[in-house]
């Protein structure tokens, strides 16, 4: 298997920088990439994280998985990108530095676009294109906290749902809204696609170790589920709740300090129940109440830090459709 100049033969592990484009200052816009190619044929799984330069905690754990893999015992290939947006990481920002673009909104890229468009175009064609499955890992950056796996309504939904349930995270949310991500494009192409949302800055002090364990387990379980590794997926937590997501709630535009009922996540809420509110930052008056528009289970995910940027969901609600034991 070859991606750019990085080539792995059967039974090999390789690491390199996929660098298809340069910036005006002639910096490589590069993507660090591991290929672990099994001795036997099998499916190809792409795992990538760090599409935002602030989704960086997985980069402390994902590379260490490579050390533990023995390609001789694998059937198929793992392509692993621990931190995709290297320039955003360098300058501690969500977007790529080259053109200030959000790499999660460029679809499958554009060969005649800006640096980020070209980078994503080459990566999508050469890394994701040949793969059968994609596990896209997100975190809550500095303001959100998550523990679920999302599945789009598009493409190989049954296969994607099965993969999501195998990861070992406590909740699977079906019906993830369409977006402009690489993952959604891959789903449209019929690949098995899961967006796993694990961890985030506001949980870092108290849950880092368990979140890193979840990440590691998710990758290994995905490989087991797809038959790249032998054995069945392992579970460290209780049953997986599969939810049909029906509501993504955001602040209405009132500005101030937003408080979310984070302790209610994972529990049932009733229509009309308050699940977030916004306080005026100088008077303390409540200027907006955010209530559940219908009954549902609160997903383990969304913004929690009281000063979060626009566009971060405050709460996600869904109906329980299955408990996978």
């Amino acid at each position: 298997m070859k991606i750019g100049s990085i080539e792995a033969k059967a039974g090999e592990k390789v690491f390199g920088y996929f660098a298809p484009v340069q910036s005006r200052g002639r910096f490589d816009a590069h993507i660090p990439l591991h290929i672990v190619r099994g001795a036997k044929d099998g499916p190809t799984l792409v795992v990538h994280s760090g599409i935002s330069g602030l989704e960086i905690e997985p980069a402390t754990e994902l590379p260490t998985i490579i050390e533990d893999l023995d390609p001789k015992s694998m059937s198929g290939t793992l392509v692993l990108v621990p931190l995709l947006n290297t320039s955003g990481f360098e300058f501690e920002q969500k977007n790529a530095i080259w053109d200030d673009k959000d790499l999660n909104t460029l679809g499958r890229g554009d060969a005649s676009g800006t640096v980020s468009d070209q980078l994503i175009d080459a990566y999508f064609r050469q890394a994701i294109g040949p793969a059968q499955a994609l596990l896209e890992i997100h975190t809550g950056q500095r303001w959100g906290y998550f523990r679920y796996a999302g599945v789009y309504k598009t493409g190989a939904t049954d296969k994607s749902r099965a993969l999501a349930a195998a990861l070992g995270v406590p909740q699977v949310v079906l019906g993830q809204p369409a977006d402009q991500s690489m993952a959604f494009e891959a789903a449209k192409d019929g690949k098995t696609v899961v967006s796993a949302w694990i961890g985030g800055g506001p949980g870092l002090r108290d849950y880092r170790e368990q979140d890193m364990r979840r990440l590691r387990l998710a990758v290994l379980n995905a490989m087991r589920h797809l038959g790249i590794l032998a054995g069945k997926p392992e579970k460290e937590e209780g049953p997986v709740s599969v939810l049909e997501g029906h509501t993504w709630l955001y602040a209405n535009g009132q500005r101030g300090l937003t408080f979310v009922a984070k302790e209610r996540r994972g529990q049932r809420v009733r229509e009309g129940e308050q699940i977030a509110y916004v306080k005026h930052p100088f008077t303390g008056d409540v200027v907006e109440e955010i209530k559940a528009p219908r009954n549902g289970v609160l997903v383990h995910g969304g913004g929690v830090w009281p000063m979060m940027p626009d566009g971060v969901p405050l709460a996600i609600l869904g109906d329980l459709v299955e408990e996978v034991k």
Partner: protein
Amino acid sequence: MRIGNIEARPGSHAFGYLEVAKGRSGISPDIPVHVFAGAQPGPTLVVQGAIHGAEIIGTMAILNFIKKLDPNTLRGNVVAVPVVNRIGFELQDRGSKLDGKDISRLFPGNAKGSVSDQIAYVYFNEVIKKANALIDYHAGAQTAYERYVLFTIEKDPKNPTELEKRRKKLVLAFGLDSAGFFPPDAFGANKAKEAIEDAGVCAFTLEFGGGTGWVANGDQNVRDAERGIWNVMKAMKMIDGAFEFDQPECTIYNANVILWKPSVDGVFIRERRFGEFVKKGENYARVQDPYTGKVLGHLVNTADGTVIPSGQEWPTMGYTSIGILGQIAEKVDRSKVDLTVTFD
């Protein structure tokens, strides 16, 4: 009591914006100020949050506090400022993008300086100088988590001034189980703190809470930060009531081990926890290559010490302190100390 254009008569509460300066576009980072004038005379307490704009635990505590404070039962005055640095708050920055300055370092300010110098000048003269005591809330912003009271050590510990004696009592009265002081000039000369002390204000700083502990500890932090204000008011005899502490004992640290960013950079993984004793030469944290996982180096502890409840947790390091350790200077049983203070 009057603060700039905001006036509260005895037994009342007034809210307004203290006019401070204008930016080049005409933007006015005027400071929101609550003035509570007690029905009876007494000292003046100023509580301020977000002078570093992204450090908002104190802001939240102050917002809860002002909803409960009744000026009719108050002796003295409370000036509550939930957000000092509005530009930093807006942009979630420590300083102010208007001129790149840190207001907390500019006191007594300069009426003819840049916007932040002017803000510091007006705020110092209109607010800080009118205080007998000042609680200044800081926190770990989004990248760290902290839980201790920071104060300036007595110049001569064997012969403390009256202000220093009062300050120590208020630090203890706040109620946390940990407090600490840095050796003089540990972070460079701080003329702003000297100016506040020279004005006769008994000031101390909370390094309290932060984004990385928000999920598990945020609500409790806000409650305890508010509890501290009530405790300090009890110590100043502005209200009646019993103190509520984490525990009777308060450990005071000499925070003389400050760890800075090492020469290698990558992703930072802290390995030591609050309260852990770390010997000189032992690792405090490791730095990994974010792409290969290879350990690039360690942040090595420079002197024996206990990890003070403080420090970086987010995986990228900036050019501020990454970890703070120290020696236990004193353990105080608050149940055996008279924490009340009086002001002339």
